[in-house]
């Protein structure tokens, strides 16, 4: 930090060299550096906290992993309810096994048809939310 102004001062002195040589006494020079280095004050970006595995970095990483895990767990629970629930439903309500929908057996309409778009829809929503979580994390880490 201290190196910068001194270098600026000596450059200034050299620039005024001829004048100084004639009077024999160095002229005082006013340093008017725009202090860009000071304006970009050295901050500790959160990425460094993560790199150095400080407590703060660990807390941030933990929060990212937890957010994503909670999302994953939510999707998996939903899937388990639908997929695990269907055989249970057929077991507990046997009349559903023989029910018909659009003139076709209900279990077939669900298992050989409707469930596929549902899976794709679920996946699409998950991808959207997971990417949003990552963007939020990146914003958080890079903002400070």
């Amino acid at each position, binding site marked *: 930090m201290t190196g910068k102004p001194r270098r600026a001062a000596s450059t200034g002195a050299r620039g005024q060299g001829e004048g100084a040589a004639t009077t024999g006494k160095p002229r005082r020079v006013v340093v008017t550096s725009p202090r860009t280095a000071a304006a970009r004050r050295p901050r500790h970006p959160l990425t460094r906290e993560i790199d150095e595995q400080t407590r703060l970095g660990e807390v941030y990483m933990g929060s990212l992993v937890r957010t*994503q895990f909670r999302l994953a767990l939510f999707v998996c629970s939903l899937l388990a309810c639908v997929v695990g629930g269907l055989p249970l439903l057929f077991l507990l309500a046997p009349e559903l096994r023989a029910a018909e929908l659009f003139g076709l057996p209900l*279990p077939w309409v669900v298992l050989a048809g409707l469930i*596929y778009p549902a899976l794709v829809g679920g*996946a699409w929503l998950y991808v959207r939310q997971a990417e949003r979580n990552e963007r939020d994390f990146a914003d958080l880490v890079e903002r400070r």
Partner: protein
Amino acid sequence: MSQIAAVVLVMLATVLIGAFGIRVSRTTSDFYVASRTVSPVWNASAIGGEYLSAASFLGIAGLILTFGADMLWLPVGWTGGYLVLLVLVSAPLRRSGAYTLPDFAEARLESMAVRRLSSVLVVLIGWLYLMPQFQSAGLVFRTITGAPPWTGSLLVAVVVATNVLSGGMRSITFVQAFQYWLKLTALAVPLAFMLVAWWSDGRPGLTPGDEWVLPLHGRDHPVYETYSLILATFLGTMGLPHVLVRFYTNPDGRAARRTTLVVLTLLGAFYLMPAVYGYLGHVYGMPESDTVVIALPGRLVGGPVGEFLTALVTAGAFAAFLSTSSGLTVSVAGVIAQDILRGGVRAFRVATVLAVLVPFALAGAARSLPVATVVGLAFAVAASSFCPLLVLGIWWRRLTTAGAMAGLLAGGGLACAAVVITIIGGPHTGWAGSLLAEPAAWTVPVSFTVMVVVSLLTPSRVPRGVARTMVRLHTPETLNVDRGDWRPRFM
């Protein structure tokens, strides 16, 4: 005759597209992963092409015809497995930089012992998956030519070995993407014609009171077997060696997620069809066998059109044998070359021959079960070994080397034992038979429990770099953070 022509055509196309890749792949990393220059749509088609094996193309319809509605869960699970893979595994796995499952084990647990155990499991799952592919190739070949089954198996084995040896991953990616669309067409076009024929027949339906159509019916312990099947298929997908490799060719974790979403869509579209084949097969009283998909178009649509459609499904079936077998062979050969032989392109070639030869021999020796049943067993082994390793490895910091070893040995070991007893000694009856034929419902919980309990008992053996690994697995690539310096070894 036209069927044989179709088979020859598919084989030629596969070899030619493969040969096209030779000029592109030169270095070792090209050989393995196509230098990550594969676009997402190609990549998703390739995953679909690789994944849709003989079990999907022929086996599902055959099992639905045999056992009825409970088998509808098979394609649901084989699709839904990608949803579980997407939410729990896809992006972190890509970010890990691992190319194979043993790579992931080594990167996460920093242990060569876990790596070697994973390698053994990859080879076992790969061979268990390859064996029924060769068997049903033999079955279909016998159906169309009358030749003994081993000739069809040999034909597929030779084409696969040639293709893998000549082109490596790059050509495989093109071949696989082509195979997905071929398989989709080969099932969809005959189906359209058959539905027209069925309609003009006056839309024959089931006889009233036919119990075949009801779920939870037709097997010894339908409730247990249904749940076990669901568990194996939904959790086993992530542990298949040939699926994981494809994720490496995505540029980043985000692309890996999006690719998985496309894969889910492609598979969902494909899996709408086998159930209709099974249903029509039952309505028209076809014999219960894996070849119903081949026989049905000729039965419903006669004349030259029917012959053309039969040729088309036969071509699709051979596409299925070739694509899955090629993908599995690359994965198994990669692991054998890297972890058992000394590595390098020469070792990869020796390993390729080994990877094809063993399941070919097994296909001739083992009892012939329905193809989808054996593939289902491979899923059960994957679900009881690699699923806990991946899920706990990605999301749980306290997983230890000892815990992972114990879980892989317990879950993978028990599932493998059940498979061997079922294939060699079976079929068994009663509860023992059901527990052995559908082992996932007990082996998956055993594996998870052992991994967690042993990890908690050995807290000193948490890998030292776990914090860095977690950063690597979970932070988006846009962030400039230190992700450690682990790289997969390309020999």
